[in-house]
């Protein structure tokens, strides 16, 4: 069977169990499934937040995630992967992003999931705005996310 990348950008929440079931249904060649769920925390840098609002670049976001999903499929022997990124207003404790990878072996599933998350953090065209106690502001990018993404660059 061919490895398939499922990519969705949506306002609605996702269900990790359902997404795993969809990725593994009717297959007996999968030995390892790794999921990463990114969740909205109740504070940023020690300051409480009421919510995040996620903006994205429609069209480019899908295309860029697809390009990196295809790269993951070519670099690791995956049987499939799923990326779901939410947009809109998200409150503490709610899901933001899901990356799922499936493979025969665990190392491929772990590495591909880390690669995709590092990419999403540093290079996918999404922006977070936080609602704090004193109004709202855009979250600043962190240099160590760039460094994390950089480690996957082929030399």
């Amino acid at each position: 069977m061919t490895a398939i990348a499922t990519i969705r950008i949506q306002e609605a929440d996702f269900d990790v169990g359902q997404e795993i079931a969809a990725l593994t249904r009717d297959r007996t060649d999968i030995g390892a499934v790794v999921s990463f769920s990114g969740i909205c925390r109740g504070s940023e840098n020690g300051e409480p937040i009421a919510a995040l609002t996620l903006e994205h670049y429609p069209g480019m976001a899908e295309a860029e995630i697809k390009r990196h999903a295809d790269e993951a499929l070519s670099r690791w022997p995956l049987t499939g992967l799923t990326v779901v990124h939410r947009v809109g207003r998200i409150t503490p404790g709610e899901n933001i992003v899901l990356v799922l990878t499936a493979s025969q072996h665990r190392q491929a599933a772990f590495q591909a999931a880390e690669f995709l998350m590092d990419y999403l953090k540093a290079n996918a065209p999404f922006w977070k705005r936080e609602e704090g106690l004193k109004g709202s502001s855009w979250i600043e990018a962190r240099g160590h996310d760039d460094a994390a993404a950089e480690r996957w660059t082929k030399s």
Partner: protein
Amino acid sequence: MKVKYFAWVRERVGMAEETVEPPADVRTVGDLIGWLAKRGESYAHAFETPRVIRAAIDHAHVKPDAAIAGAREIAFFPPMTGG
């Protein structure tokens, strides 16, 4: 060509997209940022620190020295904070 703005670049410019016709000597993404910055106070504010501005041409990330000839859509935005 169509220009799009996202996040605080969009808020500072005051609009999400517009169509512009830069003169022929505006050849690169960096030239376009310089030209846009002179269109008024809101643009000057949005582009006051060019090194933090990221750009994409037709949905692909580009550097400031990228040529804009043939571009259908150019987007400007701050460093990404998704995931």
